[in-house]
């Protein structure tokens, strides 16, 4: 009898789930009619599953409120952010290239020309100043000398010789 109960217990879950063949089910049903112990186990199996279902269903009631914010929109925002960053980088690069290509070379050319022009002017002014000083030293005509100095001041105003010429006039 004991052994029979052990064998039956092995099959009670499948019996409870209705997974046994008709022959096997009939054998179990016959045993259950005679054995109160196995009957109580079967009832406990069914009852515990019923209560587990209640607990799970309660959890399900809680999850009913769950709303799933599918993050497709978030992905869009991320793409637009990437696009904005890329556009920003592109803008900076373009500005930098345009600056280097147009502004800086032009500035270099102007500086060189200016320097060259100033050297030439300085040389001319120095030669004229030297001539005017010689004239001042050996000539009696003060008006002619002053006119020479004034010419230097008017023609090469940015040179240091123009400043010296101005002082001579005074």
């Amino acid at each position, binding site marked *: 009898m004991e052994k029979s109960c052990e064998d039956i217990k092995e099959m009670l879950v499948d019996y409870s789930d209705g997974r046994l063949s008709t022959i096997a089910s009939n054998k179990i049903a016959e045993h259950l009619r005679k054995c109160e112990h196995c009957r109580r186990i079967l009832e406990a199996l069914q009852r*515990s599953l019923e*209560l587990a279902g209640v607990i799970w*269903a*309660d959890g399900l009631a*809680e999850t009913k409120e769950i709303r799933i914010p599918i993050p497709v929109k978030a992905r869009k925002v991320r793409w637009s952010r990437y696009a904005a960053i890329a556009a920003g980088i592109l803008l900076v690069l373009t500005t930098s290239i345009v600056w280097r290509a147009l502004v800086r070379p032009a500035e270099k050319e102007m500086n060189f020309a200016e320097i060259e022009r100033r050297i030439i002017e300085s040389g001319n002014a120095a030669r004229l100043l030297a001539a005017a000083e010689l004239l001042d030293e050996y000539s009696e005509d003060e008006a002619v000398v002053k006119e020479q100095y004034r010419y230097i001041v008017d023609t090469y105003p940015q040179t240091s010789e123009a400043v010296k010429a101005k002082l001579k006039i005074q």
Partner: protein
Amino acid sequence: MNEINSDFAADAYQAAGEQSSKQKLDIFLAELGRLKRIVAGLGLSAQDGEDVLQDVSIQALKQSGKYQSREDSVRWLIKVTVNRCLMEHRRRRSFRRRACEILKRRSESKTNSNRTDEKVIDAEELEIVRESLQELDDSMLWPMVLRYFCDLNSKEVGEILGLNPSTVRSRLREARMILAKRLLERGVEP
């Protein structure tokens, strides 16, 4: 699908853009009820469940056309949800709901729906089963939930958990007997 706000679903479809994403969303939304059962059955709180399902939806959208049929996609969704739940579950098992809370909520919903044909549920019995589920080893709890609460058969449960159907059946038997014995041990007459 009924549980989802229709505006939201339309919004998501529009944003999804490509056809494959729309199909994936369709399947995800159609199976959401079942996925929620898995989340609830494995004892995750609403907050944790929301995180899990959000992750699953992201994975579903990212998944490229690896699975051809709808059945494959559904199986994949269930598998990912179970795995994600298990990850969460390992961190904290959260059958936080007490028997009295369950019964209170149940009596409220019963009043609303006038269900009088159900058996009266004893708080003590409920607490015993709740505790037993909480103490049940994960290897037995997961097959229990998938088989009895998510209505999957042993073969499907085995595929999801990477087990033989016979192993699933033996674990189910073991788990069921543990719960039944706890009820009997505590002297509660079923």
